[in-house]
Each structure stands twice: as structure tokens, then as C-alpha cells.
């Protein structure tokens, strides 16, 4: 159905809801996306479970399920004293998955928030100002987006790691702070593109013209009009950013470039990396449970992102 037909249909049906704010309308549309709503609940449950790890975890991060003197405790398949089995030095995989998810969520959220802040700022300014700044930003992102992601990530990681003052501020390349910094450096580009496109399309609209005519400054325009109007794409970017950082952390860990979250702590990436050899040895529980935790996060966020996209941009929706 063409868009004009849709809107005339809305009009005839009395759905064009001048009475409902765009935000409420989007919220209602989001609720019709069943997979997304279920995902919100599942994700919320997981996050809650992880946040409550002092109570929900059964062992300490470095604690063995029982002392080696009582018998072999390594690589045990799931049992009632260790629901997800034990790892190579007899620690409880279930508890470690909880701790790992906690670290990964922190990395994901922090990176996504920084990317979003940085990307929105750069994208909005590039879109509003145009000219040379815009050109440079777009070319830089072009180059990075065209490059194999992992290569760019590794090269930039080592390059920043070699720069003294950067490591002073964000720590060594193996620190979590450095990871967050690295992912933010990569993450802003996607956000900036989205925001810039949004700004360019909003710039065409008359209410921005009107604001300009009334003598509003650029900064005012950004804050008053552009950002509220970009809330949809920004939420989508945020959710994708969280998953992107978590998966990137896991990928880096897989090849030995991951974080070292300090004594005995772990991350999803480190757990996944540990599973590489476990897979060939046939210790499936060492792979399956961390994967499951990771997949719950990526799948939920994926569906939530899809729901948000449909909600804020119904035209591109369609199938559930």
C-alpha cells in the first residue's frame, strides 16, 4: 500500500491521532511487536539475575566447587553442585557465566553510551554545519567502515596502546577501560552517520526554518528540535552498540587480544575464548552455556532493535 493511501486510510479511520504524541504512538506500535516485547522481559530478567549475582551466584569467581583433595574437580559435566559443569581448574561455570555477563554488560553499556554521546554530537554538528568538517567526518567513517572490522580494531588497539598519554588516561590495552575507549572510538561512526542523515532530513522541514527565522542559534536548534526527533534512531543505535561492543570484546578475547579484568574476574569473551579448546576436547558445557548467555543478549537486543525501528519508522516495518 502506498504511503499516501496509508495516510488517507489513517485519516478515514481516525487513526492519525493528533491526540497522541509521537512518543506514545511509537510506544503503542512497539507493544504490537511481540518478539520485541518478550525480548525486553527476557533481557530484563537476565540483567536482574546478573546484577543480583551476590545472591544468585553459587560460588566465588575463582572458587573451586570442592577441594581437589576430595577428588578430581576439573571439567566435570553439569551436576547438581555445578549446574553448568566445572571448568579446567574446577570452578563453577554457572557462577562464572554470571560474573562474565556482568563484566560484558558493563563494557557494552559504557561503550554504547560513549559512542552515542560522541556520535550524536559529531553527527549533528556535521549535518548542521556541512562543509569541510562534514566532508572529513564522512571520509574518515568511509575508510573505517570499508576496512575489515577486526583488522581495524586490532591495528587501532595496538596503535593507541603504544601512545603514552592515551594509556595514562584509559589504561593498558588489556584493561576494561581501554576496551571501552576502543569500542567508543569505533562505535561513534555508525551513530554519527545515522544522526547526520536525520539532521539533514529534519533541516528540510519547515519548523526548523521557522526556528532559524526566529533567530535561534544552532545549539538551541539541536537541543530543542533535532535530538528529540532523533530519539528513535538513537535508541536503535544504542541497542546495536551494546551488542556490538559485547561481541567485539568476545572476538578480541577469542584471538588473545581481550581484556584482563583483574585477578580471576572474567568476561563473556574470556569464557568464549576458553571454550575454543574445550570444544575440541568435547567439553560441550564449557562452550554451550557462555554461548547461550551471549545469544540471549544478542537475540533479545536484535529483536528489541527491530521493534524500535518499526515503532519509530512504521513505513519500513511490515512483517513481525
Amino acid at each position, binding site marked *: 500500500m*502506498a504511503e499516501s493511501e496509508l495516510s488517507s486510510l489513517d485519516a478515514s479511520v481516525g487513526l492519525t491521532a493528533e491526540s497522541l504524541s509521537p512518543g506514545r504512538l511509537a510506544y503503542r506500535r512497539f507493544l504490537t511487536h511481540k518478539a520485541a516485547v518478550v525480548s525486553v522481559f527476557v533481557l530484563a530478567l537476565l540483567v536482574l539475575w546478573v546484577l543480583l549475582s551476590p545472591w544468585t551466584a553459587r560460588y566465588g569467581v575463582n572458587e573451586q566447587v570442592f577441594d581437589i583433595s576430595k577428588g578430581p574437580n576439573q571439567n566435570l559435566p553439569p551436576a547438581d553442585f555445578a549446574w553448568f559443569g566445572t571448568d579446567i581448574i574446577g570452578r563453577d561455570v554457572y557462577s562464572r557465566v554470571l560474573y562474565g555477563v556482568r563484566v560484558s554488560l558493563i563494557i557494552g553499556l559504557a561503550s554504547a553510551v560513549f559512542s552515542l554521546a560522541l556520535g550524536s554530537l559529531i553527527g549533528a554538528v556535521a549535518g548542521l554545519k556541512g562543509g569541510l568538517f562534514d566532508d572529513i567526518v564522512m571520509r574518515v567513517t568511509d575508510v573505517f567502515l570499508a576496512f*575489515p572490522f577486526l583488522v581495524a580494531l586490532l*591495528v587501532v588497539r595496538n*596503535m593507541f596502546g603504544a601512545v603514552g598519554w592515551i594509556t595514562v588516561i584509559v589504561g593498558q590495552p588489556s584493561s576494561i577501560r581501554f576496551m571501552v575507549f576502543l569500542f567508543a572510538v569505533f562505535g561513534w561512526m555508525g551513530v554519527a552517520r545515522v544522526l547526520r542523515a536525520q539532521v539533514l532530513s529534519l533541516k528540510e522541514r519547515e519548523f526548523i526554518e521557522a526556528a532559524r527565522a526566529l533567530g535561534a542559534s544552532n545549539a538551541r536548534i539541536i537541543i530543542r528540535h533535532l535530538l528529540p526527533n532523533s530519539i528513535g534512531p538513537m535508541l536503535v543505535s544504542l541497542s546495536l552498540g551494546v551488542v556490538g561492543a559485547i561481541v567485539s570484546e*568476545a572476538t578480541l578475547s577469542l584471538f588473545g587480544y581481550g581484556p584482563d579484568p583483574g585477578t580471576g574476574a572474567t568476561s563473556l569473551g574470556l569464557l568464549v575464548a576458553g571454550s575454543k579448546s574445550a*570444544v575440541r576436547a568435547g567439553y*560441550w558445557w564449557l*562452550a554451550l552455556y557462555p554461548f547461550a548467555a551471549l545469544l540471549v543478549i544478542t537475540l533479545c537486543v536484535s529483536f528489541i532493535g527491530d521493534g524500535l525501528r518499526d515503532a519509530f519508522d512504521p513505513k519500513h516495518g511490515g*512483517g513481525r
Partner: protein
Amino acid sequence: MLRYALRRAVWLLPTLILVTFLVYVALRLGTDPLASYRRTNIRVSKKKVDEYIAANGLYSGAFGYVRGYFQWLWGFITLDWPRSIKGSREVWPHLKDALANSIRLGLVASMVGILVGNAFGVLAALRPGRLRDTLVNSGALVGLAVPPFVSALLLQLLFAVYWQKWFGYALFPVSGVYPPGHQGFDLFLMIKHMALPVVVVAIQSIAVYSRYMRASLLDVLNSEYMRTARSKGISERRVLVHHALRNALIPVTTLAFLDVGAVVGGLIITEGLFEYPGMGRFFLVAYGNGDFPELMPWMVVIIGSVVTFNLLADIAYAKLDPRIRLG
């Protein structure tokens, strides 16, 4: 058309030079080639180190970087490539094999992804909101949400380790192109070794293309000229192929060109986990060793491929869409 292509092609060289220079700087900063050289070749003579510096142009200072880059470039162009730091072997024969292996894996996986993905996308777009659309759409979301290392390791667990346990043999091998020690060409073995990596890569591209094609075709199907086409009284088949698909394929083709260009450097995770001797593994090993003489030619191949296919994508776009056919 030709003029447009030529005008774009003129930019190929400057872009290559600029990007390789940036990569040169980034690699020198990031891998510290000299330290890696000393680490790999312990107790190496001062003379050898100086030779290494001269061969790779690893001079210090801002000017040293520029001079070093052009010296490296000259050596690269005249095919006078410095030898690898590990084992001091020639780079090209090794790189060539890696390239061939990656192209083989990448092309097969891309073909599967493009064909299957687009077919799914078309099926979904033709019945928007119906069951098959829902299946394709959510299937693609799931496919995109599964990181390649997860599918790679799960496939290994199932088809190699557990298959071995249950049936006494591994259905698919988990590493390499051939079993260790194998000599000569064997298509069957090659396919067997490639099967799991291809599946891992294809899952992603099927997901990407089915979504992309679906969106593109839906856009076209909603356009006014589709109604005009139907109003002519031509067959529905002709309407779909000649009018809808012809337009929907424009963005999809562009994406396919970009993808194929990225494929040689884009399979690092898959190649790494399957110990597949392609470009990705070449990079991981070389990067791990800080092997500057191996990394630079690798980068040139990757960048060259990306830039060239970018150009081809633009040309294809201009060829398919008369609206941007510029003089």
C-alpha cells in the same frame, strides 16, 4: 559511461597511496616492527638490524616515516619485497596461496549467501506480513544475532567432535584445506574441508541479503510505476521481473560488489577458528608476530580489493540506474 568509469578510476591510485600510507604509519606505531624483529631473531647482529631497517624503510622521526614509506613503496612496486621476519622467507608465494584459499572460500560463501538470501528476500516481499515473510524476517534477525564464532564452534562441536563420538568418524573436518600431510589436488577433500566455514559465512550473508532484498523489493512494489506496469495488461510475471526485480536489484547489486571486495579480508574469525590457511589466518599470524614485511603487502591486497570493488560497485550502479548516469 566509459568516461565516468575512467574519471572514477583516476582516483584509485591516489586513494591507494593515501590509505596505504596511513596503514603504514598505523602499523609502525602499533606493532613496533623493530622490537618484533629483535624478539623473533634473538641475538641478531647490528648489521642485520640495519639491513632490516633499510629494507623496510623503518627510519625514525616524522620525516623518517615519509621517507620510509616511499622507500617501501618503491621496493613494493619494483617487486623487491623484504623477507618475513620469521624464517626470513619470501612473502609473495605464501600470500598468494592465502589469497587463493580466501577467494575460494569467500566466493563460494558469497554466492550461496547472495543466491539464497535474495531468493528468501523476494519470497518475503511478495507476501508482506504473511507467514513466510515473518519466517524470513525473524530468521534473518536470528542469523544476524549469532556471532560467527558461535556458529563456528557449535558446528565444530556437533559435526566433528560429537559425530566422532556417536558414529565413530567426523562428518566434517574442523581445520585446514586438506588433512595434514596431504599432497596434490582433491576436490572432494577440499569441499569437505570448506563445508563448515562456508556455512558459517553464508549464515551471515543469507541474513543480510534476505533483509536487504526484502526491503528493496517492498520499496519498489509500493511505487507508482508498478501500478502503471500492471495497468498495461502485461503478465504478472513480466511485471515482477521486468519492472519490480529490475529496480530492486539496483541497491542489492551494489551491496554484492562491496561484499565481494571485502571478502578477502573479512573472514578472519572463520578462518582463524577453522585454521583455514587464507588471508585472515595469514593476518592473525603475521600480526601476532609483528611481521611488518608480511603485513604491508597483505594490507595492500586488502585495500586494493576494497577500493577496486568500490569502484566497480559505483560503475555497476551507474550502469543499472540511468538516473545517475553522469557524463
